[in-house]
């Protein structure tokens, strides 16, 4: 499936009522570091199979929000559940059900693609036999047959990122968190990367993605724009453009983010 097709199928924003099945629920979620309120009472829901974009300037609180949801840090107040598990008490359960890929991607340079897959598969408790079968398949899908046993260090950045994404969803998580996954990648590779995201979403994996690229924001089903730790806007890209009367998400973002008082 490519992006245009996917956009058509999802262009009307949310899925129909019957299919709506929230996998991330946040209510007044807040994180304070001392006096500093990094995330300020954010409330939203993300549905199964949705591609949920998280936009915001540096320091807006995107990463902190993502870290609370992925079980890396505890919230200060508010409620949230991920994949049906409470973020305060069921962090371990959450971790089993999510995948994660950060901007600095999560692969080991001095391991081969195959060894990276085997390692992360093992850490997430995928049975060894299954790892063996599916990793071979995955390498084929990625077209990495010739590189399967070379070190990741020798791969081009774009391939590394595609591989990192595949590794992040190898254990078939319910939700995958992507923290600026396409930093530093050329437009063509970014396109291919998003094709992979759509493919994963079509299989029912919920995608929670932060990004700096406004064109990528347009690919999301719904986007959130965070300013100074608060959610300033949350809707489909189409609706946002309409509401703020702008031609592109870039302009919408600029309009909202300009109000920011917080610096990085």
């Amino acid at each position, binding site marked *: 499936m490519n992006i245009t097709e996917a956009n058509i199928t999802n262009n009307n924003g949310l899925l129909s009522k019957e299919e709506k099945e929230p996998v991330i629920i946040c209510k007044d979620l807040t994180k304070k570091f001392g006096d500093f309120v990094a995330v300020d009472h954010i409330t939203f829901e993300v549905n199964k199979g949705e591609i949920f974009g998280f936009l915001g300037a540096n320091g807006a609180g995107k990463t902190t929000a993502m870290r609370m949801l*992925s*079980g*890396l*840090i*505890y919230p200060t107040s508010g409620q949230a559940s991920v994949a049906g598990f409470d973020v305060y008490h069921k962090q*371990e359960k959450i*971790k*089993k059900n*999510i995948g*994660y*890929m*950060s*901007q*600095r*991607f*999560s*692969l*080991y*340079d*001095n*391991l081969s693609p195959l*060894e990276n897959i*085997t*390692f*992360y*598969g*093992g*850490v*997430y*408790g995928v049975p*060894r036999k299954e790892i063996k079968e599916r990793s071979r398949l995955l390498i084929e899908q990625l077209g990495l047959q010739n590189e399967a046993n070379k*070190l990741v260090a020798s791969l081009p950045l774009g391939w590394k990122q595609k591989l990192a994404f595949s590794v992040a969803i190898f254990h078939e998580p319910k939700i995958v*968190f992507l923290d600026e996954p396409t930093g530093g990648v050329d437009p063509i590779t970014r396109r291919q990367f998003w094709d992979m995201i759509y493919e994963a979403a079509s299989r029912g994996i919920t995608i929670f993605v932060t990004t700096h690229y406004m064109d990528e924001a347009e690919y999301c089903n719904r986007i959130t724009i965070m300013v100074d730790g608060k959610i300033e806007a949350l809707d489909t890209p189409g609706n946002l453009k309409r509401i703020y009367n702008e031609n592109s998400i870039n302009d919408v973002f600029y309009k909202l983010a300009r109000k920011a008082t917080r610096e990085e």
Partner: protein
Amino acid sequence: MKQFLAFITKEFYHVFRDKKTLLILFGIPLMQITLFGFALTSEVKNADIIVIDNAKDDDSEKLINKLRASTYFTIYEKQIGYNAIEKEFKKGQIKAAIIIPPKFNNDLIKGKKSQIQILTDGTEPNVAKMLVQYITAITMDYQREINATNSPMMMIIPEIRMLYNEEGNGSINFVPGVMALVLMIVCTALTSVAVVREKELGTMEALLVSPFKPIGVLLAKALPYLVLSFVNLNFILLLAVFVMKVPMQGSILLFFFFSMIFIATSLSMGLLISNITDSQQVALLLSMIGMMLPTIVFSGFIFPLENMPKFFQWFSYIVPARWYYTGVKSIMLKGLDIHYIWKEMVALSMMGTFFLTIAISKFKIRLA
């Protein structure tokens, strides 16, 4: 358990593919032990000595031959004047000069005593003292020989033995110290760098969001290095015993058991260092320099602890290497059993537990 295995496999890949790690692991011990073992020695060997034999008689000849037979010196017989001797010293070519007066034998027989003069280079007091000791000992020895054939007289002959080190082999004192130093540095450096590397690469985050428990991350990091350090320990022991000729009087089993406690303590120290640093360079620097100095100074293998001010003596009790050094000497040189080194074992275990507890609790705080 399966997760743990996956992690450990990965860790071994890192080690065997990283030349830097291998160099730290095996290069440092080889270099340190041979360097310290051979270079850091207080004994004197093959010192150049001039003998000016003005007597040229039977006794002087025999005495010189006796000196020549010793491995401590290389004897040069020269017929030079008193003033010329100083020139030789100034050139720095000789460490001592022995002057035998004319009528040496004559004086001995008729006057019942004669003199020899020993001149040494006082700019190196330790070497000078050693040489005087050696030469005096040989002269005394010769004196005893000639007395045995002549009229016996009363004398007290002190019989001196250096227990646990009969040959006065200096390296057997240093090598256990260097072993402590090497294990300490290698273990702390490797673990701290291994953990910090993941922080630097950003893979630590990926590990922390995985279901793998944070404490598991630390243990999985330390375990491969525990195994590698064991291999390394064998290597060091072989170097010590076969190259440096350090005896192994006690139980090898006890030695390994004791050493593994020390290694575990050092690994915990490494984990602790990894918690307070974010870059590999700093971690390496802290473990290399930060560990080396206290280990060298306070383990007592170079500077005797008894001569230090009380404060430093107290301080030395918190230096793990001090305990290890004492224990290893007891096992290897004295052949003592566990009853004599339990204190060292307890001290090291306590320190290890302490470091590990802080390392783990600090690691958790970073996640909270």
